[in-house]
């Protein structure tokens, strides 16, 4: 009996060995394709997750009797805006809610689960007299049919927005696993008036643009505000006497003070993580050095020399490193050095030039401005310079600042118009999605995000 010729390769010595080897791999391949054994058979594997926001329902807050409440409606709206604008949550359209889906203070689970809601936020607002409000909220897990959080707050009626932001942060913390950023503020430079002689004032507002306040009167130009991470204090550059110097603004008293007289001018202030010292650039003889001074202005230490222009320093969250911008290699690039000024190392190597680095509060990213033939862009990279990603581009985009948990970046986008330019504050997720404008009463630039207020 002679085998067909097509079988001969298999039955050859090499073919038999090859077939045996292939057969020997089959069990291993089978194991690799199944989930790890659990001792009672392989687990049921679920993978390929979507990066999707959490659907949640936020009915209007009522008064304790269940009747409609104007302020309750507003609170629910701010909570919905906070969570929805974060990109991590998807508030469900209230018009789809089933009526009477809260019975005796407890959700009718089926009425919410049918909407696809995974979480539910309920609450009521009670007027306690004397201008006091009591806001009670509960966070429910619809899928697990239980209450996750229940808290009541008492405050003045004028403070209702802050209550809403705090509730949003609690929900964020419970469902995402990290602190939120809604109960925070942003300092920025307001620009108004004619293009030839604009009035630039220091301003502060809630992170979402509400409660805007101007801190200076515009008699002298203000630039580059920076929040102290531990105190109610801002550092900023003021051109009082046409001499740019770094000043401190006390948010409690409204007073401002000069940090100190160093060199020809001082610019680009950044606080240390503990808020006790300040980095800034001091110009002298055509160069600029990065110096470290006490927050009260004493004890200046030069961290770089004046042979090149070294500006816009930013501490790492642990205070051990500083990223800054220098033209020591011929054009502006980003460098990282130790907190004592040692071991400076260039980290930016892309096309164009880099400036205005900001270290994320999480420590994992550095945001920057980059410009070149393609225009301006806002990007992030890891502290070693790897993983560079461009998040947004435009005619002029600058001044990146991180939100308190490092998930969102705010910067300003300037676009030319017929009578000058339009400058707006913009937020964007560090993944490059969810870009949103922040309402400001005037043109705005140089944002600085505060830490969480509570």
């Amino acid at each position, binding site marked *: 009996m002679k085998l067909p010729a097509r079988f001969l390769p298999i039955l050859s010595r090499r073919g038999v060995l090859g*077939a045996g080897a292939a057969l020997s791999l089959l069990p291993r391949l089978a194991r690799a394709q199944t989930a790890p054994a659990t001792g009672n058979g392989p*687990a049921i594997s679920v993978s390929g997750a979507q990066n999707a926001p959490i659907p949640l329902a936020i009915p209007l807050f009522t008064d304790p009797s269940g009747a409609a409440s104007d302020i309750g409606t507003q609170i629910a709206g701010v909570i919905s805006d906070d969570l929805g604008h974060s990109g991590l949550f998807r508030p469900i359209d209230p018009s789809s809610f089933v009526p009477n889906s809260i019975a005796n203070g*407890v959700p009718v689970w089926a009425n919410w689960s049918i909407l696809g809601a995974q979480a539910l936020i309920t609450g009521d607002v009670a007027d306690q007299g004397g201008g006091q409000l009591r806001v009670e909220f509960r966070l429910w897990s619809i899928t697990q049919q239980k209450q996750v959080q229940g808290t009541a707050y*008492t*405050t003045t009626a004028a403070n209702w927005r802050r209550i809403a932001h*705090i509730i949003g942060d609690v929900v964020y*913390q419970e469902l995402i*696993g990290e602190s939120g950023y809604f109960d925070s503020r942003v300092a920025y430079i307001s620009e108004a008036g004619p293009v030839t002689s604009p009035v630039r004032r220091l301003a502060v507002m809630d992170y979402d643009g509400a409660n805007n306040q101007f801190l200076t009167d515009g008699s002298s130009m203000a630039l580059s505000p920076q929040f102290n991470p531990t105190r109610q204090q801002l550092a900023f550059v003021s051109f009082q006497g046409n001499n740019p110097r770094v000043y401190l603004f006390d948010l409690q008293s409204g007073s401002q003070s000069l940090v100190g007289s160093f060199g020809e001018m001082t610019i680009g202030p950044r606080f240390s993580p503990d808020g006790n010292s300040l980095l800034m650039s001091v110009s002298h003889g055509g160069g600029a050095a990065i110096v470290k001074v006490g927050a009260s202005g004493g004890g200046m230490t030069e961290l770089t020399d004046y042979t090149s222009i070294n500006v816009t320093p930013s501490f790492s969250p642990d205070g051990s490193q500083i990223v800054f911008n220098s033209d020591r290699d011929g054009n502006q690039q980003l460098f990282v050095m130790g907190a004592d000024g040692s071991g400076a190392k260039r980290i930016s190597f892309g096309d164009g030039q880099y400036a205005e680095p900001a270290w994320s509060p999480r420590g994992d990213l550095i945001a920057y401005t980059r410009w070149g033939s393609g225009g301006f862009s806002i990007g992030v990279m890891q502290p070693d310079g790897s993983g560079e990603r461009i998040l947004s581009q435009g005619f002029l985009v600058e001044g990146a600042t991180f939100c308190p948990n490092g998930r969102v970046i705010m910067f300003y986008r300037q676009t030319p118009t017929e009578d000058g330019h339009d400058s707006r504050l913009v937020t964007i997720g560090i993944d490059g999605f969810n870009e949103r404008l922040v309402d400001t009463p005037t043109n705005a630039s140089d944002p600085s995000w505060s830490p969480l207020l*509570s």
Partner: protein
Amino acid sequence: MYFGMRRSGLISFAIHALLIAAALIVLPTPKIPTSADDEVSVQFVGPSQPQTGEKPNKVAAPADIPVPHIAPKAPTPKITKPIVAPPPPPPPPPPAPKQPALPKPPAPAPPPPPTVQAPSIAPPTPPPPPQPPQKTTSTVVQPPIPLPPIPQPPAPAQSATHQQHVVKTPVPLSSAVLNTLQDLKTLQKQDKPPTSTYNPDAGGAPNGGGSPNSTANSRLSGADRNAIGAHVKPCWSIDAGAPGVSTFSVFLDVQTDASGTVRNATIDPQSQANMTDPYYNAYAQRAISAVMNYQCATLPLPPYMLGQPQTFVFQFSP
């Protein structure tokens, strides 16, 4: 012809020998079960225990709130007084699960003790000069959370082999009831196998009678597992921005009712050690939400697994 058959026989013998040798060499070795001693026992304080009040809460914990600073020019100083949130009216008992075989809960469990928290709220700053948000304190009571009634454990059934005490020295022809029953019992023919179980105190082998924690995974084929995983996948979402999420993997113990619908899901012990990581915790909670989502909770179980509750182990990976 003979040589041809002999050659074929030798080739056949060689192939079979190689296959047997390959199978012996590469047979999958059984996985060493994870010892309970390797796991770090961590108390999970999170959404599964929301009423305990032990979870640090930045808003609710008074110690975390900085002392408010009142601006000197504040027009109306914000003052709050402690308040106590009254408990909500008692909720109606939740609908009973669709498990006729399960015992009816006799009475609802008492509500957990309220947790008192004192959050601080700061009012907005008035117009310039700017004022820091004024923080006020309030007392907050965690409202009692409606808990499903806890079923009472059934009364322990008396063992069929239990023997009553008998009179040790009965008088002849005693009419004592126990002695009479004993006499009748000895006259009965044993027609049932013994139903006694091992006695650990007496040195019985605890692992000699099967696995008390067995799951139904072993009764599922690979195709069944794939079908169930594919069914749950549309409900499975993650927060891709969470640090380390690409390395996360959580095991869940998922219980289904007789219809194959998920009724409960808990973190498997082998994943409990990671629950102290808040990002992992949130990841695991989203896995629970996925498998309990009404759109995915009715699992496509094979027919022979329906009709009684089952427990499965799921693994959720990004």
